[in-house]
């Protein structure tokens, strides 16, 4: 479904991504791991269009999306959540998700129909599926950190994507919250038929949930394979798990 080929990106002299490759099959849960500074977020930013690669291609469903702006990439069926909660602080929780659904329905520019009548069912169902129904009327900026992360994901779901990209979904969470979030993600993937690509630092999460793992180091893809392969690979152990 998603193919990332030979991606390169430098910022002045700093080579953030230096030859990254990634394959994501439909319906899979794929994880990207690597130490801090390995280039994971930069890679994600290039896939979703926030950054343009210096070299390389991103192919999604047989279409080259490398040069498209973020909003068009989103329309193709890719949604993402951000590492730091990137929500709409002054709007209510309900509105946060509704805006996303309206965008997906192509109704963002609808001028004369009251918004509160549109996309209500879809929004409610998304809020229910992440467990935020009771907070629908709250201002997003006033939510607790954990709830903001849930809202993060809910907004991305509003786009009814085929591929959901999550940037460190459990960052800063306690073990219980982490487990709950990952369960939620897995559940959403199953119930909505989503393909999931995420990057993480928490190894337990990765090895418990991912079906395919891509390992990055210093901007380069070391390998991609099933969890056991990765666990047993000496190259990976050398540069990441065991060593430096």
């Amino acid at each position, binding site marked *: 479904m998603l193919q990332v080929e030979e991606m390169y990106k430098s910022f002045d002299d700093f080579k953030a991504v230096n030859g990254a490759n990634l394959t994501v099959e439909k319906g899979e849960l794929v994880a990207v791991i690597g130490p801090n500074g390995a280039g994971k977020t930069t890679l994600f930013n290039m896939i*979703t*269009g*926030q950054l343009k690669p210096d070299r390389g291609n991103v192919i999604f469903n047989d279409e080259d999306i490398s040069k498209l*702006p*973020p*909003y*068009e990439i*989103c*329309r193709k069926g890719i*949604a*993402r959540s*951000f590492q730091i909660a*990137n*929500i*709409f*602080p*002054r*709007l*209510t929780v*309900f*509105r*946060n998700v*509704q*805006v*996303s659904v*309206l*965008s*997906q329905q192509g*109704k*963002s*520019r*609808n*001028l*004369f*129909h*009251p*918004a*509160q*009548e*549109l996309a209500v069912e879809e929004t409610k169902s998304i809020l229910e599926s992440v467990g935020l129904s009771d907070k*629908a*009327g709250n201002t997003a900026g006033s939510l607790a950190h954990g709830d903001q992360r849930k809202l993060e994901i809910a*907004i*991305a779901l*509003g*786009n009814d994507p085929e591929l959901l990209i999550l940037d460190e979904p459990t960052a800063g969470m306690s073990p219980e919250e982490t487990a709950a979030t990952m369960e939620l993600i897995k559940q959403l993937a199953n119930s909505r038929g989503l393909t999931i690509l995420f990057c993480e630092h928490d190894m337990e999460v990765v090895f418990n949930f991912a079906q395919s793992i891509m390992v990055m180091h210093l901007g380069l893809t070391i390998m991609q394979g099933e969890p056991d392969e990765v666990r047993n690979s000496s190259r990976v152990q050398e540069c990441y798990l065991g060593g430096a």
Partner: protein
Amino acid sequence: MFRDIFNLKSVGPLAVVFIILLFLPPIIPRFYIYILAVIFVTALVAMSLNMVVGHGGLFQFHHGAFYGVGAYTVALMLTKTSLPTWVGFVAGPIIAALVGLLIGAFCVRLTKLYFGMLQISLGSLIWAIAFRWYSLTGGDDGIHGITMPSIISSSKGAYYFTLIVLAICLIVMYMIFKSPFGATLQAIRDNPERCEAIGINVRRHQLIAIVIATFFAGIAGVLFVVVEGSVFPDLLFWVLSLEIFIMCLLGGWFTFAGPILGAAIMISLRTFVGIHTEYWTLILGIILILLIFFLPEGVWGYILEKFGRQAREVVEGGSD
């Protein structure tokens, strides 16, 4: 459909105010009728600015340029051509919106401060041309003695005309505010990057908002000519634009109706302070500083905070 957003809670108080205003002219002195008419016009231009600033997050620093363009268009059409009055009235907002589209297209390529400074530059160009083109625009003197159709040329006539136009515009603006377009615009204000990521073409959306807002500014410009019977280059000068900005801030720019209150307070203060001292500008500066330090949410915003959700529903017409 209308029933949902125009329910008794949201419309009630404003409708009451409207009805009171309808019955005022016979019982108050002519001077007050004039001042109220000025407030109506200013409220409209402030509301139109708030559409892009408070709801859209754009640094629209020279909104007055579009207000002035609307006013000058109708003034020129009425004095230099023999076209019927209504043509001028219609041309005003349309030309203002066209200029808004042109300038907006330049400015949306940039963000925040750059957007604002570029707009001041472009707006000032229009001012400079109007200021110097004496034969056409009367230069520094402006154009005076513009005659209106007799129904609206009297004090009361102008009052009712502006009140009704204002009411209609407010209804339309409210519908836009409550529409998906308005919701998306506010989302763009809060987080444009996230909007791009959820499939919204932010620039186009902002540009459309600018065109709508400048259209309303153009209507306000026409109303200005109806009330005052003249135009001056000051309408196009950036200082006025910043004053309108302050009105939005004063009223509360994250609310819907705040700017109306801001305009009312400003005009009233200016009129009555002006009677006692010539240092209105100093007072305005002090008010602004007080606002910045103590009331950044504006007067109406403050009231809403204090009286909570109930008051919010009155003005913003129902929760989600």
